[in-house]
């Protein structure tokens, strides 16, 4: 089959690789129809995530048709259309039983789980196409993919609903939703969202649906801010205004009740702390650049909530622990428990309460995936989301 493979920093190529096979009873093979490039794929593209190997197939936002089902799967049938959660979860361990699917104890192969146990204290769950830290599973920017525990994860999509309406159930829509849910929104709340990429924009939509009085979205790309505005947010361009001061003034001196860092480890901006972070990362003194997280913690009101869907991977320098403790902030974070949210969000999509298609700026054939990465990386104002199609688009 054809698949997008990672070869090194800023070097991805579509190559011919072996087809995946059913190896465990609960596996299924999916023939992919649509597959997206995620903002977090850019962390791989930039080689900010460790434990990548040349030849790894990327992609964790994908959907398609079931073409083969293992003997242990009593749920899926060949021919069904499914969206597959990026988190690989068994459904039976302590964590899955608590619906903390992104903490599944079983999906990371035993030999691969050592690395994250050393890095984070406990082994992390498996995920598609996201380094050997999360299992070394082949991703879905390909014609076919093997899906483990396929009786638990994939959600069956009724015929007649376009791929583009439901594809983002795989990651970014539940991620934006969980980011807003983690804000523990109360009536009258103002929620501030840093980053108007796909997750940030879905967090804006979700926070309003979950009852926020007001959402303030922060970015520096005019087009992305326009999209946030069209979803109902007030907007701030950090290149033009002092963000913390603006937020204090706009909330009558109280500050935002909840703040979402939808940016993560590769913050933009030319503030002094970020320039220093760049320098430290370049010489290996720190791994993550947490400029936004610092601003989030400083801007959040006393007793407020901080939600971190943005991806971090290692160590951050100059973390404002004093502001966090003295203000009594609550932090909620984590990779998304996708399986917990897919059915509810599919319902909201079919009821036309959530639209996801506005996000897609580019549709490309899989063969042009490398171009997709390049433009998503380099033209962030215009390229809001790239969806790859395995069949020729008409």
């Amino acid at each position, binding site marked *: *089959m054809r*698949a997008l*493979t990672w*070869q090194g920093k800023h070097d991805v*190529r579509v*190559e011919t*690789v*072996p*087809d*995946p*096979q059913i*190896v*465990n*009873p*609960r596996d299924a093979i999916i023939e992919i129809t649509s597959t997206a490039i995620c903002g977090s794929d850019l962390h791989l593209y930039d080689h900010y995530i460790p434990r990548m*190997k*040349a*030849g*790894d*197939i990327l992609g964790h936002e994908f959907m398609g048709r079931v073409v083969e089902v293992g003997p*242990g799967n009593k749920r899926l049938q060949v021919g069904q259309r499914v969206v597959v959660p990026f988190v690989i979860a*068994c*459904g*039976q*361990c*302590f964590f899955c*039983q608590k619906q903390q699917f992104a903490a599944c*104890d*079983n*999906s*990371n*192969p*035993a*030999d*691969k*789980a*050592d690395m994250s*146990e050393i890095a984070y204290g406990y*082994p992390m769950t*498996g995920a598609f196409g996201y380094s050997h830290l999360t*299992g*070394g*599973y*082949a991703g879905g920017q*390909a014609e076919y993919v*093997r899906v*483990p*525990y396929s009786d638990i994860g994939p959600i069956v999509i009724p015929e007649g609903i376009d791929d583009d309406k439901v594809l983002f159930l795989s990651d970014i829509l539940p991620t934006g939703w969980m980011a807003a849910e983690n804000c523990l929104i109360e009536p009258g709340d103002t929620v501030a969202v840093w980053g108007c990429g796909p997750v940030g924009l879905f967090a804006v939509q979700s926070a309003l649906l979950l009852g926020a009085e007001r959402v303030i979205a922060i970015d520096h790309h005019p087009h992305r801010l326009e999209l946030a505005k069209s979803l109902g947010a007030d907007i701030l361009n950090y290149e033009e205004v002092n963000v913390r001061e603006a937020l204090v003034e706009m909330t009558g001196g109280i500050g935002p009740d909840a703040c979402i860092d939808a940016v993560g480890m590769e913050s933009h901006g030319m503030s002094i702390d970020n320039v220093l972070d760049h320098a430290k990362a370049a010489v290996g003194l720190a791994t993550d650049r947490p400029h936004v997280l610092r601003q989030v913690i400083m801007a959040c009101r006393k007793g407020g909530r901080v939600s971190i869907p943005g991806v971090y991977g290692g160590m951050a320098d100059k973390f404002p622990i004093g502001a966090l403790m003295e203000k009594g902030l609550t932090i909620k974070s984590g990779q998304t428990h996708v399986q917990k949210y897919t059915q509810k969000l599919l319902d909201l999509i079919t009821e036309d309460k959530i639209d996801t298609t506005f996000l897609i700026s580019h549709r490309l054939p899989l063969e042009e995936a490398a171009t997709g990465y390049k433009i998503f990386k380099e033209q962030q104002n215009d390229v809001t989301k790239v969806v790859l199609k395995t069949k020729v688009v008409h």
Partner: protein
Amino acid sequence: MPTRTSPTNDAPLSANRRPAKAAAQVSGEDSLEKFELIGRTVTIARPREELFRFWRDLPNLASFMENIESIRVLDNTRSHWVVKAPAGQTVEWDAIIDEERPNELISWTSTAEASIKNAGRVEFRDAPGGRGTQVTATILYDAPGGTLGKLIAKLFQREPNVQARRDLRRFKQLMETGEIATAEPPAAAPRA
């Protein structure tokens, strides 16, 4: 074989900073001091009885213990173990179950002729809050110097605990999900 460490610690022996020394002290058997002691606990969301039954059927262990080539049952307490070693070699020994409490504990010791003297126990306890069973495996083995020592070091990987924790992860996967997670190329995870 002792498991608890000292009057001032409720932690298992394997968490001791000098586990073999602690084992020697607790048991009063000075000779244990030159042994290696490793251990690991996992919570498995299955009933104690089921896990005990699977483990007590010793040939089953080869299904999740990577280095075991075969386990042959000789009689109710004796078994013959064939374990993979580097360069296609194998190490073999006989083991005797010296203590068994149904659904709670299995303890074994290698016979005097074993080239790698070893002893171990696996304990099954109800986990709190209906979380299933806490399984603790503790293994004590002689770590001689010389060629054999090097071979054993390879057998147990960089640090001795690595193999034990990987094996217990696989045991948990098999018991909870009915399969062992893999992303082995090319079939399970194609790559360029």
